[in-house]
């Protein structure tokens, strides 16, 4: 029997009252919100609860929402055994965003979180190895933020390039 997304939400809400909210089921990917401080317990619960069993963290990423002044961490969970999916969202403030790591729930989170740290500047508390992963260690800024401005040069090499079209027109 396939468990509906709203049942998963109801179960989680029963277990973590007032920590989860904002279930939305009439979209392509049903999702609900979780308070940042209970993401690890909720993750562990969703992984281990019989009938829910989200043994796989398909994806972990972030979305920058400057208009609402928040950064949203998005967890895509999937269950191979039960064949259902759910999306968890955690809202963080844009100033000093931080949330606990789910590395101990799903190991795949280790690199995903490093990527989010690298490209969004979100601090994952308790992470075993929080370093930049794609960009060099001494890079300034976090490129996937909407208000990111690229540094003018890196390691003595200019990051700017004259537009090709103007050159051709000249």
């Amino acid at each position: 029997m396939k468990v509906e997304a709203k049942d998963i939400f109801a179960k989680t809400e029963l277990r973590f009252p007032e920590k989860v909210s904002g279930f939305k089921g009439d979209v392509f990917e049903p999702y609900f919100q979780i308070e940042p401080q209970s993401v690890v317990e909720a993750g562990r619960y969703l992984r281990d609860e019989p009938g829910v069993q989200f043994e796989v963290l398909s994806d972990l990423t972030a979305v920058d929402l400057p208009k609402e002044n928040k950064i949203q961490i998005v967890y895509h969970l999937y269950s191979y055994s039960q064949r259902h999916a759910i999306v968890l969202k955690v809202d963080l403030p844009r100033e000093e965003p931080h949330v606990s790591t789910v590395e101990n729930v799903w190991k795949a989170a280790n690199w995903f979180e490093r990527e989010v740290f690298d490209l969004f500047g979100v601090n994952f508390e308790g992470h075993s190895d929080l370093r930049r992963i794609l960009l060099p260690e001494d890079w300034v800024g976090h490129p996937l933020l909407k208000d990111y401005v690229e540094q003018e040069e890196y390691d003595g090499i200019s990051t700017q390039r004259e537009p090709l079209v103007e050159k051709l027109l000249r």
Partner: protein
Amino acid sequence: MNEIAHTEGEVFHTEDMTLSVGPQHPSTHGVLRFVVRTDGEVIRKAIPDVGYLHRSIEKIGEKVTWHGYVPYTDRADYLAAMFANQGFCMAAEKLGSIEVVRRGEFCRAIACELNRIASHLISVGTFGQDIGAITPFLHALRERETINNLMEEICGARLTYNYIRIGGVGYDITREICDHITEFLDHFELIVDEFNRLLSYNKIFIERLANVAVITKEDALQYNIVGPNLRACGIKWDIRRDIPYSVYPELEFEVPVGTGEKGTLGDSYDRYMVRIREMQESCRILRQCLKMMPQGPAIAKVPRKFKPPAGEFYARVEAPRGDMGFYVISDGSEYPYRVRIRTGSFTAMSLVEKISHGIMMADLIALIASLDVDAPEIDR
């Protein structure tokens, strides 16, 4: 024998060694680097250092239009560009509620399966090369060349196709090309057997790979290993079958899984063999597609100024390196608000640090080759 080592009271000291493998190393399949701590020839830990090929494709997605982003997805994984095209287009179509025309879906399936064979050929070919067998590599590349020619006929490009567009495909696959594909299949199905005789059932090859770098089911789930690597651990999971998309539900095909036939379940040999069998299944799919392809247009009418309503979708496709996810968010404007590409190589690479503990230095190369990681796909 060394006398000093045998003198009483003397202890023979060994020291850990730190090596840097890469970024330019023939077996790293692109530009990636490992910092390896070894004790003699046994690896204590191999720490992957990625990011050399980071081009920030996700950021580019926020700056170009929906149609304009399709060519960029090609560059996410140059060996399997078709799947990235399809993943993004599927997400865009879902958001814009566009129905893909039926002939377009079949063209997609044909192009994708051809691409899968090409990608797996590179994988198994370089696998042999990495552990010291040069000849099979040339055999594999010879066949891939034919596929590249076919791809050129289909869409004009040999590597970065930009073939699958929102709503269908760029160019129809004509009768003539269908004949060429059939011709290729007739030839290739025999080649797989030849390749098996040449490499797969070679005693040296088997002994070199059996029981090497075993990935357990638990690790595969914990680290979210996907695609052939996951199936090699004995987990029968294929997006084409389990979260069906495109025309795959109508087609008949098997999902090959690892059985531990020559050693342990989930060893390097299983990962190799799954790919060989997947190529055979792709041939089966191709033949069915060619037979079932209906007449009609190849692409639906999609406005040039494509503005899907606000929403988000996570599209999954079964790429040669596993579940490729496109998490696309639209805010109703001409540009995607956020494009996230989740690739199979990225998670496969994160597992290396764990699996490499206690294996031999030479087996690290076999491990990387068997995971079939692709550096541009890791770094995007």
